[in-house]
């Protein structure tokens, strides 16, 4: 006993802080520093967001405040009810929902089947097709907006929803095919071969074997397309901005800001209402996003 306690007394404070308590762990000092860094990062991330929440709860419409308190005095949710009941906010959100569901569905329809073709069959032009799909990711959206605008004006698709949906589908379809093909590639062909030996036709092998296995990927692609189209501003502004009734939520909020630029509480309330569902959705799928995004680019 005496030997052990003598050793312990020799270990100074400094050593206890910088050496790990157990093998393979971090020293207490290191752990404290890491937590400090992470807390700092978390504050930098959270502070602007919390300010918006607190502004939305203000009884007056002021954005200035001397107090840095997060729950303002006299906090009310009046701003929320004002935005919901006295503006077209609910319609804007509904419009956005319609368009994004439409785009996501379109993307899935086109991509689920074609990605299967790319993944399971070798044919002339497959590689050039894949290169083309990859190249489409290079093109900035604005670049396509110019001809799309002119073509849609001439086709009468401007200020209509089918026009906006098709415009979003332009980038959604190649992207979806690329992601799904990468996913199908990771599913071994053996399962479908087994099914075919048992008497399935090609289509049945696709429908009964591969599709059920790819439901998570299909869901992710659906959600990715959904999220991409949800907050999009520029295509919407150019293609439906002229029609008051068809505004999606970013356009509506921009319009609202232009008119009521000093009603900070209302603006903040609208911002919170739009963001919260998306944040929850996002946090839920963020686990799957990584694998989805690196598919097709990295092997193994």
């Amino acid at each position, binding site marked *: 006993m005496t030997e052990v306690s003598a050793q312990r007394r020799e270990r100074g404070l400094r050593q206890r802080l910088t050496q790990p308590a157990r093998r393979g762990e971090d020293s207490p000092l290191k*752990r404290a520093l890491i*937590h400090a*860094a992470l807390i700092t*990062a*978390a504050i930098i*991330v959270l*502070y*602007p967001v919390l*300010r918006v929440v607190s502004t939305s709860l203000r009884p007056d419409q002021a*954005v*200035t405040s001397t107090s840095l308190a997060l729950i303002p005095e006299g906090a009310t949710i009046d701003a929320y009810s004002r935005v919901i*009941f006295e503006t077209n906010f*609910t*319609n804007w959100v*509904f419009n956005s929902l319609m368009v994004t569901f*439409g785009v996501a569905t379109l993307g899935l*329809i086109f991509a689920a089947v*074609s990605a*299967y*073709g790319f993944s399971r*069959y070798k*044919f002339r032009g497959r*590689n050039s097709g894949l290169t083309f799909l*990859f190249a*489409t990711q290079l*093109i*900035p959206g*604005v*670049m396509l*907006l*110019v*001809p*799309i605008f*002119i073509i849609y004006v001439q086709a009468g698709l401007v200020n209509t*929803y*089918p026009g906006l949906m*098709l415009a979003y*589908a*332009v980038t959604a*379809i*190649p992207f979806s*095919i690329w992601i799904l093909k990468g996913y199908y590639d990771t599913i071994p062909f053996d399962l479908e071969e087994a099914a075919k030996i048992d008497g399935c036709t*090609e289509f049945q092998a696709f429908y009964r074997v591969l599709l059920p296995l790819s439901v998570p990927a299909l869901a992710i692609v659906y959600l990715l397309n959904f999220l991409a189209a*949800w*907050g999009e*501003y*520029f295509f919407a502004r150019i293609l439906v901005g002229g029609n008051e009734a068809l505004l999606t939520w970013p356009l509506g909020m921009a319009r609202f800001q232009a008119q009521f630029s000093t009603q900070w509480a209302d*603006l903040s309330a609208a911002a919170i209402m*739009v963001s919260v569902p*998306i944040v929850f959705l*996002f*946090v839920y799928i*963020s686990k799957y996003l*990584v694998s989805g*995004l*690196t598919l097709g*680019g*990295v*092997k*193994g």
Partner: protein
Amino acid sequence: MFDFEQAWIAFTDVASSLLIIVLAIVAMEAVLYLALMARKSERSTFIAAVLGPIAAAAAYLLLSLESITLDGLTSLPSDTWIALGVIAGAVVVLEAAIYFFRTRRRTTNARLALPAMLLAPAIAGVGILYVYPLLYELNLSFTKMSAINFVDPGLLGLTWEGTILEPFGAERDIFVGLDNYVNVFTRPILQQAGFWQIFLQTIIWTVVCIFFHVTLGVALALMLNRKMRGRTIYRAILILPWAIPVFISLQIWRTEFNFQFGAVNQLLGLIGIDPIPWMADPTWNFAAMIITNVWLGVPFMMVITLGGLQAISSDYYEAAEIDGASGRQQLTRITLPLLRPVLVPAVLLGVFLTFNNIMVPFFINQNSWESSEILVTALYRAAFEDNRFGFSAAFAFVIFLILLAFTLWYVRATNVLKGAYES
């Protein structure tokens, strides 16, 4: 509060266009099936033959409907019904022709048949939606089409004027050849800023942002990749900038960079720094853009790096520890090299997203400083604020070529696409 009528219109618009597209695909696939795969007396042949005309007719019907109500159905002009019949009949004739032609010629390449059918919708869709506008834009770049000259641009200088193919009437001579491309490089794109200035701004913007994205993202991921208390909470919080809709984040940051009320200047005041004119000064505006984009982009890199880190087996670290490697050695010899396959595509993606990021510079640049413009925002302004369509088409292709050149170089230098073709 909620305009139900408008909502119904929105819903039916979207639903009917989806339905039309699906029906068009069905019709196309039916015809293709007969052309490529059908056998003479199979049930599927019969189904395809019948389905084709029905789908085509239904699609046309939906297209001509003014509103999805019974009223809309009955108020169709009689021409529509005639046209319906014509279309259905045409599809039947087409199918019969294909079918007889095919059964006489025996076989088409059976191995191509199924991929062709699988890919046909995507090829048609991408062709119509993507390739056609691109070609249109190429053609556009050779004209001086603008808001004033809003006429049919013709095709490479040929117009329809005076021919039977005169849909919109090209009234003025707007073909200018390669002038637009020359002007992109030699004349100002915005009021004063020329191509090279904006290009340089874009490069600085991209490099600085990516630098911070990667360093901060990897650092945060390294910190999070261990058993620690509150790990899930940290991770959930740190994802927020990625999760919040970008439009909202930009409104937030715009407010926070406000000279008087913004949190940034208030916090700077707390530590004794004078308020910075984020919006009023061009240089500080550029810095504000970068700060905002770093805030937005770090979570993406962090999440990807975390995924990559978790794929690194702990055996490596254990072996290194036994061999006496220090923490830093483990980092540089094990972690970073093994992260490379994950980071390289992520950086490529990040470069693209940053280079083409139109939202951040557009919204943070409240006073429209030309020094805060990047290539894509300049393109947007040239096209839709100055309405110089021909010019911006040429500009767009120049940007595309830059991106293409970069990608080719990057892919070759890092071998990042090796996996995509092998699988």
